[in-house]
């Protein structure tokens, strides 16, 4: 070590290694290898296994068992067995368990931090100051939800056995995000940690044992992608929660399609980091450090597309370059290190290849000239300039410490560039002007928006993405919903899939007499439109006679309807009061035609009493959603002091709504009204057997000031149209009530749209089953906007 006199001259930092003694002792204790944690005990290390190593030096840390389908099966069975008693515990009893876990994590904070850093390669500063404290916070917060579950979520019950698959970038934190809400809601879990980073999950298993958690409530099976696939495919799993790549998310969506498994996905991103000309530039530069050089840039919500207003770009870049040079990269256990090691050689290769591609495409790479260790996986902090929206590095998630910088001219253009992506996980906005900042936050398509800050997390706030960044939220009230289902749903029975003859464009054998021939066309953009096919099909009444004709819509009609809906964006920005007025007006005009609709329903086979009840229920339902239009608000979450964390409910945009066969009027109204009340524009497919109650609504909509394109109706073969909707990338969410759930869910994987699909007919007349907060919750996506304040 240099002498004090020498150091007085250089004033170097030297090294300040965090001791790994306890973590090493723990690893030595498990030198024989780790088994899985199933039913409250560790299994013997499996015959097949793999080594995990320290990314900072390549040295082996431990031998890990490779989970087989049999291991998964044993774990799911243990979880199923435990579910019975765990789900029946009182919220208070479960709260005590979660509280005990939180307390033990807090007592083991340093051990877990060191272990995480050794396994993952992230700087000890981050695991010590960010990851592990957030883990403890998450369990405390959810001990609270466990306590309050009956009060805050009446009429709900846990989903069952949850299969959870987590990534390697925040190993223990992602475990906490998955396990804490699942347990609080009364579920039991089988968790598969990432192949690269299973160690803190295994340490957590020991904590569960120490905390006296009943056997089987938490099961941890280590392994690789095949182990994860076995968990996803296991028939005994009721829900899958996944955090990882969009690519794997898509596979999981397809694999779980039609299985009835609830699904939440938290996927990739290419999040914009927007610096307006009135920003505190030094603060924004420091923001870049926290955005892209945090956790070596291996962060799904990393601000990796830096958009800077053109006039300040030179100054900003000068500051950014200087700051980048002062970053210290090296031994992650050194307390004076800003950036640690890349997780694995595979990831390093991916980063290197993308960076090479960026250079070949004409980008200029600026990289910190810091010295890198020789052993291990390292990549110095870097930024790309001279890139365009079409550049690979501006488009593809690098998942490394490399940001791409480009300029914009106006706030308008910033939003345009920001939203020009398939992802929508997070966004950062720097501006000292509240108008610019909030306007940008409102218009950017992202599940999390940080104003004048970045990468802030808290258990009380929801986290999750728009678009192909996934669906579902983790954290806070929003996250709890992912682990609960309405209690009455359990009693529903699947519909018997009756073999229905295809819709026929041939002339009907017999026709019920009517005054003047009326042929319903399609309803697109506020106008009646002939079906593209040029065909109509006969609709038969209860007596087997044709009672009318409906358009035989096809994929082009769906395309046109989606286009009309996309154009009607003014509806989403209209005031909630305005939307409520339109809904009330719909009810008013429907009421005026109540007799006509009652007659139509009777034609379809309803008794006089039933028909009257359905029309009356429809009117009440429209009123109910009109009432909710300006009342289903967001929340302000309690996160950090001097921060407003706004959870805003935003409409999806264009939604597909495929209506059930039962209750042709009420079913349609029950689905379309909440969707449009929340500001969505809808392409609705009415029941193909009984479309006329819906097509009769054209005139009601026409007279009720419903702007063209807000409600579009395409009649025809349900599943053919539903498939087109599911595959349409402009459609952000799809509700489907019919027997083709599997097809719809699988087809939705293209743009990972959120789906709500059920093959179990519900009682649409029931106020519990046919209306309620769940419809509203599913009609919106929550955007969490973090607004720190202070002068």
């Amino acid at each position, binding site marked *: *070590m*240099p*002498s*004090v*006199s*020498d*150091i*007085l*001259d*250089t*004033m*170097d*930092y*030297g*090294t*300040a290694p965090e001791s790994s003694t306890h973590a090493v002792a723990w690893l030595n204790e498990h030198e024989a290898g780790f088994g899985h944690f199933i039913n409250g005990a560790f299994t013997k290390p499996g015959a097949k296994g793999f080594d995990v190593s320290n990314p900072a030096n390549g040295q082996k840390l431990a031998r890990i068992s490779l989970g087989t389908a049999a291991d998964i099966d044993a774990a799911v069975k243990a979880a199923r067995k435990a579910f019975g008693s765990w789900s029946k515990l009182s919220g208070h009893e479960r709260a005590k368990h979660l509280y005990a876990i939180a307390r033990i994590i807090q007592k083991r904070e340093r051990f877990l931090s060191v272990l995480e850093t050794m396994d993952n390669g992230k700087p000890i*500063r981050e695991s010590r*100051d960010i990851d592990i404290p957030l883990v403890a916070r998450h369990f405390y917060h959810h001990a609270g939800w466990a306590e309050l579950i009956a009060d805050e979520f009446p009429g709900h019950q846990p989903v069952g056995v949850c299969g959870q698959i987590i990534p390697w970038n925040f190993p223990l934190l992602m475990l906490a995000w998955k396990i804490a809400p699942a347990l609080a809601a009364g579920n039991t879990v089988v968790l598969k940690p990432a192949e690269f980073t299973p160690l803190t999950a295994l340490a957590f298993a020991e904590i569960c044992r120490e905390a006296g958690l009943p056997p089987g409530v938490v099961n941890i099976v280590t392994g690789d992608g095949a182990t994860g696939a076995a968990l996803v495919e296991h028939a005994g799993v009721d829900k899958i929660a996944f955090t990882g790549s969009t690519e794997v998310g898509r596979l999981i969506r397809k694999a779980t399609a039609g299985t009835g498994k609830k699904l939440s996905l938290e996927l990739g991103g290419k999040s914009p980091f927007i610096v307006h000309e*009135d*920003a*505190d*530039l*030094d*603060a924004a530069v*420091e*923001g870049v450090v*926290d955005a892209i050089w945090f956790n070596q840039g291996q962060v799904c919500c990393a601000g990796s597309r830096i958009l800077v207003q053109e006039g300040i770009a030179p100054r900003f870049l000068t500051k950014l370059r200087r700051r980048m040079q*002062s970053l210290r990269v090296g031994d992650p256990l050194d*307390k*004076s290190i*800003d950036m640690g090691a890349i997780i694995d050689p595979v990831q390093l290769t991916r980063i290197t290849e993308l960076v090479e591609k960026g250079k070949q495409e004409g980008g200029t790479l600026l990289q910190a000239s810091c010295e890198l260790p020789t052993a291990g996986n390292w990549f110095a902090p870097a930024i790309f300039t001279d890139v365009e929206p079409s550049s690979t590095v501006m488009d593809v998630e690098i998942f490394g410490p490399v940001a791409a910088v480009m300029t914009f001219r106006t706030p308008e253009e910033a939003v345009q560039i920001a939203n020009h992506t398939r992802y929508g996980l997070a966004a950062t906005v720097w501006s*000292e002007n509240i108008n610019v900042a909030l306007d940008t936050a409102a218009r950017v398509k992202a599940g999390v928006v940080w104003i*004048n*800050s970045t990468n802030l997390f808290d258990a009380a706030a929801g986290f999750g993405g728009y678009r192909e960044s996934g669906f579902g939220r983790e954290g806070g009230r929003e996250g709890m919903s992912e682990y609960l289902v309405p209690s009455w749903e359990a009693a529903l029975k699947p519909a018997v899939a009756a073999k229905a003859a295809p819709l026929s464009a041939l002339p009907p054998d017999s026709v019920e007499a009517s005054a003047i021939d009326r042929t319903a066309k399609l309803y697109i953009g506020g106008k009646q439109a002939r079906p593209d096919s040029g065909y109509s099909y006969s609709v038969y009444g209860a007596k087997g006679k044709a009672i009318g004709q409906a358009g035989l819509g096809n994929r082009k009609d769906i395309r046109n309807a989606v286009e009309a809906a996309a154009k009607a964006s003014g509806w989403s920005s209209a005031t909630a009061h305005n939307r409520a007025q339109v809904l009330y007006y719909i009810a008013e005009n429907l009421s005026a035609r109540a007799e006509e609709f009652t007659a139509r329903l009777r034609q379809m086979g309803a008794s006089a009493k039933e028909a009257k009840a359905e029309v009356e229920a429809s009117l009440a339902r429209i009123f109910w959603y009109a009432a909710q239009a300006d009342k289903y608000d967001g929340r302000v979450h309690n996160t950090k002091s*001097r*921060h407003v964390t706004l959870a805003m409910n935003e409409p999806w945009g264009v939604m597909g709504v495929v209506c059930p066969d039962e209750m042709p009027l009420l079913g349609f109204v029950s689905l379309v009204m909440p969707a449009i009340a929340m500001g969505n524009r809808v392409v609705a497919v009415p029941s193909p057997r009984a479309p006329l109650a819906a097509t009769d609504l054209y005139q009601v909509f026409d007279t009720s000031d419903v702007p063209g394109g807000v409600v579009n109706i395409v009649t025809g073969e349900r599943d053919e149209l539903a498939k087109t909707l599911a595959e349409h990338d402009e459609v952000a969410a799809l509700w489907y009530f019919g027997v083709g759930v599997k097809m719809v869910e699988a087809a939705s994987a293209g743009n990972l749209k959120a789906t709500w699909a059920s093959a179990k007919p519900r009682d649409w007349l029931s106020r519990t089953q046919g209306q309620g907060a769940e419809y509203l919750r599913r009609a919106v996506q929550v955007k969490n906007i973090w607004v*720190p*304040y*202070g*002068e």
Partner: protein
Amino acid sequence: MNELRPVGAASRFAPVARNPGTPLTLDWFEDVQVNLSAAERRAASIPARRSVKKNYQAAWLVKALQCIDLTSLAGDDTPGRVQRLCAKAKRPLREDIVKGLGLAAMPTVGAVCVYPAMVAPAVKALEGSSIPVASVATGFPAGLTPLPQRLAEIRYAVEQGAHEIDIVIHRAQVLLQDWAALYDEVAAMREACGEAHMKAILATGDLKTLRNVYKASMVAMQAGADFIKTSTGKEDVNATLPVSLTMVRALRDYGELTGHQIGFKPAGGLKTAKDAMNWLILMKEELGRRWLEPDLFRIGASSMLGDIERQLEHHVTGRYAASSHQPLA
């Protein structure tokens, strides 16, 4: 052991040229934005991102000691008290500790800082050393006496032998955003200082907002301040890391615009060795190695030295030290 290195002129660096100031240039600061929450986050991360241990820690503490303006600004100061302070300034560490650290010479503090009336005894007591005497002036701490008196006070202190003058600004001029008035007064003070270096105390606890802090920093530098300094020690909030961060960023911006190197002095509330380390890390992180020398960095403190002594004794002996074992200042 009494061979003293000349203070403020570390051999490895070129000496700092004095700041001639610039005309009042509003464009450089009027539209400045400083985000409080972001400044607080960065300030909080500075001690968290760096840790200095063992020999490095000892060296950094010696460096902190060399940057201290050992201060006594009390109503009951007497020539005798000042003489004692100066003795401590010359021999801040016990000889066994200096030897234990392997230092070639007894390190000395950056300066001794006193009221104008105590300059003469300080100069006398420090005769033969190269430790400069700093004097507060201009109606310290509130700065609300008439300008002619304030300027006369500077001239008096300089005549008494002060090498450095710590002036206070007229806070109302910042609160009313009267930059021309502030500039004119500080420029007049700089003129009155003559050869003596001028440190401009902004009394940031009175200015409240970080934007005010940035603007006042910029005006003081444009008016020719050699150093900008946070506090008198008499405001209800003294030096904080977010305020210091804002000031060092201002002086960095000024340096980029003019090429002049400005010094920084946090004062008030810095009491522990840990405080000293935090501010040294701030300087190195935001400004670089050059700002770790007493010609560009000072710490205004009175009790911090005792804590540094104890930490250094612990480094040398491996045993925790008692404050009664360190000579009194």
